[in-house]
């Protein structure tokens, strides 16, 4: 066997990996290798499985009405909760408000996130990119509740905005606890998610393609419309899907910036579970929300194909 020179050393990372591999060989012998993939996704499958169990539980309680005399769920199943929810004007309003809110938030967020992500990808100056990234991530560190509270301070009746308006002689306005305030708060909350989901899709478009469109006679507007937007479609759909589902099911922003007058479905569900303690009605509402979200995602996949989210190669 050739002698190893005294000064020959493997990188630390290699030796560390050797140790881990030796250990792994003890725990999970090599002949089990064909099942390694399954082993790795088992925890995730378990988590999803637990969620399904929970959903079955919810489905069960959605079929039991609350006995107002004993405050216990009924023994037998009925669709009374669903009938009640669908017949109620209040819940119809809440559902419509949530759906419209999700649609508005998605549209506004994508419209604002696209130029932001584009600038982030295309800027030639590293400091501009850094500044854009820091501005994007800063709200992440603060958390949703504190952020919403921040808007209360800024937009309140004696908040910064109204103070500034009074300086130029405008009477204080009610900027909070209305629908626009909720949408505003949601867009602000969703923007970082949308930008981060769009960046990879935009970065995948070669800058040369845009230069080519220009040399072929397209101004920037037409280049964006005919070339950048279609090529960024996977990112736009992915971001739209995430924003739509997150805003459809959002709780904190409508609760805090809506001030109880602008409830979304999640707030209504919360009220049923934790205020009126009508588990059955709450479960029915929750199931309908899950159904609405699933239909939305299913429709997107049906129209654009799962491949549009850059999953499973081309097409």
């Amino acid at each position, binding site marked *: 066997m050739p002698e190893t020179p005294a000064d020959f050393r493997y990188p630390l990372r290699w030796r560390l990996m050797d140790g881990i591999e030796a250990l792994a060989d003890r725990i999970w012998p090599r002949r089990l290798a064909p099942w390694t993939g399954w082993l790795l996704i088992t925890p995730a499958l378990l988590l999803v499985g637990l969620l399904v169990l929970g959903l079955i539980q919810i489905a069960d309680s959605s079929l039991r009405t609350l006995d107002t005399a004993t405050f216990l769920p009924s023994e037998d199943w009925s669709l009374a909760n669903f009938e009640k929810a669908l017949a109620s004007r209040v819940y119809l309003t809440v559902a419509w408000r949530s759906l419209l809110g999700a649609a508005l938030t998605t549209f506004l967020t994508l419209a604002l996130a696209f130029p932001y992500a584009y600038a982030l990808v295309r800027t030639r100056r590293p400091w501009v990119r850094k500044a854009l990234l820091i501005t994007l991530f800063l709200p992440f560190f603060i958390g949703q509740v504190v952020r919403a509270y921040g808007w209360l301070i800024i937009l309140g009746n004696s908040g910064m905005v109204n103070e500034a308006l009074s300086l130029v002689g405008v009477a204080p306005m009610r900027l909070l606890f209305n629908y626009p305030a909720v949408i505003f708060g949601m867009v602000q909350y969703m923007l970082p998610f949308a930008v981060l989901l769009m960046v990879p899709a935009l970065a995948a478009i070669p800058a040369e393609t845009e230069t080519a469109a220009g040399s072929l006679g397209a*101004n920037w507007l037409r280049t964006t419309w005919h070339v950048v937007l279609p090529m960024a479609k996977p990112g736009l759909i992915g971001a739209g899907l995430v924003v739509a589902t997150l805003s459809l099911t959002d709780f904190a922003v409508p609760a805090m910036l809506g001030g109880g007058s602008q409830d979304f479905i999640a707030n209504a569900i919360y009220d049923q579970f934790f205020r009126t303690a009508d588990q059955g009605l709450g479960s029915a509402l929750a199931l309908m929300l899950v159904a609405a979200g699933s239909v939305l995602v299913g429709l997107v996949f049906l129209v654009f194909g799962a491949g549009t989210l850059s999953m499973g190669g*081309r097409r």
Partner: protein
Amino acid sequence: MAAVRSEQPAVVVQGVDMDFGTGAMAVKGASFALEPGRFLTILGPSGSGKTTLLRMIAGFQAPTRGEILIGGRPADAVAPHRRSIGMVFQKLALFPHMTVNANVAFPLKMRRHDPRTIPARVARYLDLVRLGGYGNRRIHELSGGQQQRVAIARALVFEPDLLLLDEPLAALDRKLREEMQLEFRRIQKELGVTTINVTHDQREALVVSDEIIVMDHGEIQQHTSPVDMYRSPANPFVASFIGVSSFLEGLSSPRGLMVNGVDCAGVAAGAILPGMPARGAIRAEQTRIGAAAEACDTVLEGRITDTIFEGERLMYFVDLPALGTGVRIYHHDPAEHAPFEKGATVSTGWNARDLLIFPAKDR
């Protein structure tokens, strides 16, 4: 003025510098003029400034100093999308979400051509690049060569005054590259469009061009026809970049070049006085070996140190002890002769007109 217009060069580059502020200038004092309908290739190694020069002609970058005129007007006088310049990009930059037809129709649509004329025009240009019937294919369904053809059709369909080619053939395999070189030449001759091509492939430059500019370190080394570029290189750099040359260092002599006390026959290729330090360049295909060497102006004894078989020819590495250096020699049609063995002693020679002698200060 209108009468003069047709006479003026299609492209004028006048004293152009490009300084990115990162050390050496990318382009230094570039000046040339190109007549309408000509096919010019800018040839140089990577980092020679050839792509920067092309990007300035395309108007993507403004020169630090100097002036570029396209059809008599400054290149950056109009916005990029209003210029009449077709460009084929290095990575083609086709639109993957559109069909071939849509890709080729795109510039016509953007330039607001009459929609009724567009389909016929697109079909005509697809025929020109021999892609008739491929109009409804998607880009990813085409082979590399077919994608090249779409890019050419797209750059030409709006009948630009100038066609720019930014190394579009660099990524192709050799056979396809040579096929596309001939296609570029055919299409350019058919349309008569003024064309500027950028490449590092000397064979491509010789094959496709009416004229060649060789660049190195940001400076234009020589601007002439392919034949002149090959026969009369302006300096040793051009001699080494076009074809395969061997170099001999010595002092200029009345007969040619004094190397290691041996007076070699050669001709001066620049302003040079006897006794000056000089560098001689001799092409591998003009250096003779064996019986063919005996009748040459300079005949020396050589020893073969290595042989490389290249198919249609052999390359010999021959050491010349008398000169203290070696030369490379191409020997064609090797099937006819038994190749010389490694280590064999052979006659090596060349004629005076084939050893070009440059002042040694030239790179």
